[in-house]
């Protein structure tokens, strides 16, 4: 049997979805949009402050109700600079690379907040560097209301 294996293609399929942000996440995004304010939530048992806010502290398995202000300044907890090309499944488009991928510890928070980091000057990007958010002019209650975080002081003293 002559073997010349065939492969078929799916074509450019699209599969849109709809996701609930949840009541706590909705409060967070509305505050971000209307007041450029970041909200976390504190666990009554372990006192950890979570960002994004969520209803239950998974470790203690208790409901949290205590919203607290965090940020808007923070420090880089860890980061990378993405340099390889890939298709963003959210948009179907190739993601523009390189870009700064940061885990920001907003002041007052115990968890890290994932977002872009401005990489105009790569030498300033290090763990512990002080960062500030840069907001979109037109905000829509989305994570994209923050365009990126920008290093304002690269001194590393986290």
């Amino acid at each position: 049997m002559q073997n010349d294996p065939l492969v078929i293609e799916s074509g450019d399929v699209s599969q849109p979805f709809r996701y609930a942000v949840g009541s706590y996440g909705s409060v967070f995004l509305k505050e971000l949009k209307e007041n450029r304010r970041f909200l976390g939530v504190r666990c009554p048992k372990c006192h950890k402050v979570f960002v994004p806010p969520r209803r239950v502290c998974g470790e203690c398995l208790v409901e949290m109700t205590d919203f607290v202000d965090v940020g808007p300044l923070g420090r880089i907890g860890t980061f990378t600079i993405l340099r390889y090309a890939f298709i963003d499944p959210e948009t179907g488009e190739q993601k523009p690379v390189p870009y700064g991928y940061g885990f920001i510890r907003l002041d007052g928070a115990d968890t890290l907040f994932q977002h872009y980091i401005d990489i105009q000057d790569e030498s300033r990007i290090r763990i512990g560097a002080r960062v500030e958010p840069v907001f979109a002019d037109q905000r829509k209650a989305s994570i994209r209301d923050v365009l990126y975080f920008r290093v304002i002081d690269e001194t590393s003293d986290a």
Partner: protein
Amino acid sequence: MGKRRVAIVGTGQTLHRSHRPDVNGQELIHEAVRLALADAGLTIADIDAVVIGNMDHFEGINAVDCWSVDGTGGTLKPVIKLTTGGTTGSTLAIGGVHLVASGMFDRVLIVGWEKNSESDTTGAITTAFDPVWDRLVFAGAISGLAAEAQAYMARYGATDRDAARVAVRDRRHACNNPHAQLRKPITIEDVLASPMLADPIHLLDVCPRTDGACAVIMACEGVAEKLTPVPDWIWATANRHTYTYLGDVNWGELDSMNEAARELFAKAGIREPRKEIDVIEMYQPYSFAGIIWIEDMGLVERGKGAEYIWSGATDMGGELPINPSGGVIACNPIGATGLIRCAEAALQIMGKAEARQVPDAKVAVSTGFGGCMWTDMLLHGRKKPDF
């Protein structure tokens, strides 16, 4: 553990390549199943249940449990699907142990497989993460691993040269393994000169994408000894999940492995893992993990991982060889990868690892890792467990 002791009695691996257009998924699965049955001296009629898994959203196929029965031989048998991301293969193994240990089934066929060539893996992996909070910047497995490596380097001062030493080790080991996809040695300079994917990870620091499948057959005590003179007894299993969102991770240390290792070793009475374990097959998707996770596993003190790697202790012939097969850096059919670690550990215990055999291996550890920073672990032994 359940009431009954469990052993691996046969394994099978396909020809692993970056592209296998010569077979469809069922045929690829069947390659591994046929080899495992032959290795155990069984026919499909002897199998009581099938456990199968691959990565969600890969290959554009769901419900692989029903779709794959031609390949697995699962027609009119209990077939159970498990899919837990990167840990899928090791979760399959742990699931198999539970099914046999519980007394529900005497002989279980376990199958992990993947045709990475048929999908966009970075896109598919990204859908494993929260759509609202995690997907904006997330870029598949490498982005999270890069964040882990950066945090570790900042804390303990390791370098990309240290990591490259791990990649060199595994690629050299892979030359002894006919099942490895990449069987060409590399140098530290090769790794450092390869393209930077995401700081500090170079192309040669990470695993390839592979088409392949692995099958493992487990049997209960009483059956296992009749099938093979040296069964691979499973002494213990452990698994841990740690977070909800990526920002919750304790970056720089793998908490899930730390906890899983503690439990695994305690269950088997292991106090000095470096002395008591003969070989480890670690699900190590990138070189830095070879330094970081041996610390989390408790093999060496925090910050001492690189020194231990440079000493040659984890090379073939060293104190504790890691990844005699060449590991994930040499071959990565994702849904099969964790099960391959388990199968390779079994081969070591059974004395069937040929050119990659660690002489007289009596105790082995296999692990699984998921991009969600999850860990699975199994402890394998030549001696029958004393519990």
